[in-house]
């Protein structure tokens, strides 16, 4: 039986552990702990680990937003201390990476914005985005 939810071509997938299609699970009292924030519409617990690992590794390409999305998506796992420890390790890594990167980026951005040309001198005029856009004509395409 092929697993419908692994079909990469279908943009809408059916989770076969979806309680809507497997009501017997709930009737028998077994509650599935969904690892994602989407609950039954999201990933199954088995699929979560490679997913989280992939996002964690991709985030190192200067993509802190991806780390943030990772933590957002697996928020129930972060909140529940008794879930999969391997998964939690990746999520903690993503969270720490995101916070670190954002701290550095924001401190640089605020220094730039508040310091102005008192701090930077001539370089400020060269670095600020609206001058860069004017210089290279970046808004002339539309």
């Amino acid at each position, binding site marked *: *039986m092929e697993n419908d*939810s692994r079909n990469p071509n279908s943009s809408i997938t059916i989770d076969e552990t979806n309680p809507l299609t497997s*009501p017997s699970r709930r009737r028998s009292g077994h509650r599935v702990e969904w690892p994602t924030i989407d*609950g039954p519409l999201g990933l199954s617990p088995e699929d979560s680990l490679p997913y989280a690992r992939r996002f964690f590794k991709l985030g190192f390409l200067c993509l802190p*937003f991806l780390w943030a999305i990772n933590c957002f998506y697996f928020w129930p796992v972060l909140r529940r201390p008794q879930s999969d420890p391997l998964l939690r390790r990746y999520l903690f890594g993503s969270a720490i990476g995101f916070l670190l990167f954002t701290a550095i980026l924001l401190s640089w951005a605020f220094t730039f914005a508040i310091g102005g040309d008192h701090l930077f001198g001539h370089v400020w005029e060269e670095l600020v985005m609206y001058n860069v856009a004017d210089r290279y004509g*970046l808004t002339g395409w539309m």
Partner: protein
Amino acid sequence: MDQNPRPKTIIETLGEEIIRIITPVSICMLLVVILVSVLNTDSSSNATTISSMATMAYAENTSDSIWDKIKGALLNSLVFVAVVTAVTFLLVLLFYLRCTKFLKYYMGFSAFLVLGFMGGEISLLLIQYFSFPIDCITFGIFLFNFTVVGVLAVFMSKMAIFVTQSYLVVIGMLVAYWFTLLPEWTTWMLLIAMSLYDLAAVLLPGGPLRLLVELAMSRDEDIPALVYEARPIVTDDSGLVQRRVWREGNLSENQGHSSNEGNIVDAEQGRILREDSELAAPLIQHRISVRMNSNEDSSENIALEGIGLGSSGAIKLGLGDFIFYSVLVGRAAMYDFMTVYACYLAIIAGLGVTLILLAFYRKALPALPFSIMLGVLFYLLTRLLLEVFVVQCSVNLLMF
């Protein structure tokens, strides 16, 4: 043992689903109205004409007579509809030849172009307008993150639903803003032409979108396209409150209760369909039309136009509909906010009518005609009749 709470009434399930499709449409329209009112006030809307695919046949000039403008706009929109038809037929051909991977990559690529280039340009325009002191390094990192995560959200099948939905709304907003930069008459003619094209392409037997839907149904595949799918209602019941026929996925081995869980109930019509591990009647009805969204090359968005029922029973609305609704409201915003309110109400009413028809006919329907026609009608009525009335009343301190 789960004690079922009281079953949800039809107002809660039906109303919830309608709200879940009307909210993103409204948010997209609101964002486009905000963008238009912020960015288009410094230059008059007639002065900025862009040369693009949509103005190839005729570049509108403010000094032309009304009849010339109408003729030119008609020509422009005919050219545009012809190109869209051709590209849609090409899409049908590719889908027929099972080039699904190519289509998926193309979808991701067009999302990258829209988010990266158009998103970047619009944010640059905003930065220039507000003189926001951001430096190029920070801006570059923000834009890079935004674009890459957007492409992943559109590309990957399993991503946080909220993130995917937000990115689709943002893509719709960016493309719609680009369309509002076209000259005025061309925009209105284009909207009317696209709604007529939508009607023909979905309902006529030879229409490209209908062919695509039938191909997808016969093969029981999903068309790789940009479509907004509302989050389906997750009920606690075992299936009695399901309002639509569900497509039962292949049961996994650890379930083992295939016999009586194979019932799916179509609560609206009270039938019980028994199915086995094979899929029941597929429900995905899609229509696809291709949008031209940039003037450099023929980069296209594979947008899904129209409205249908997803495999999980959720309502799916194509991104083309988001775009054209927002274009209409954005154009109305270029005149005055009174027309914005009138057109917004007209579009929502048209969407409601389309949803009712969807519930009746349960097949893919064009979502543009009702809303666009009502919107254009209300725009004309407001601009020509209502405004005079309201202004005179206000000036004479009678009402408003």
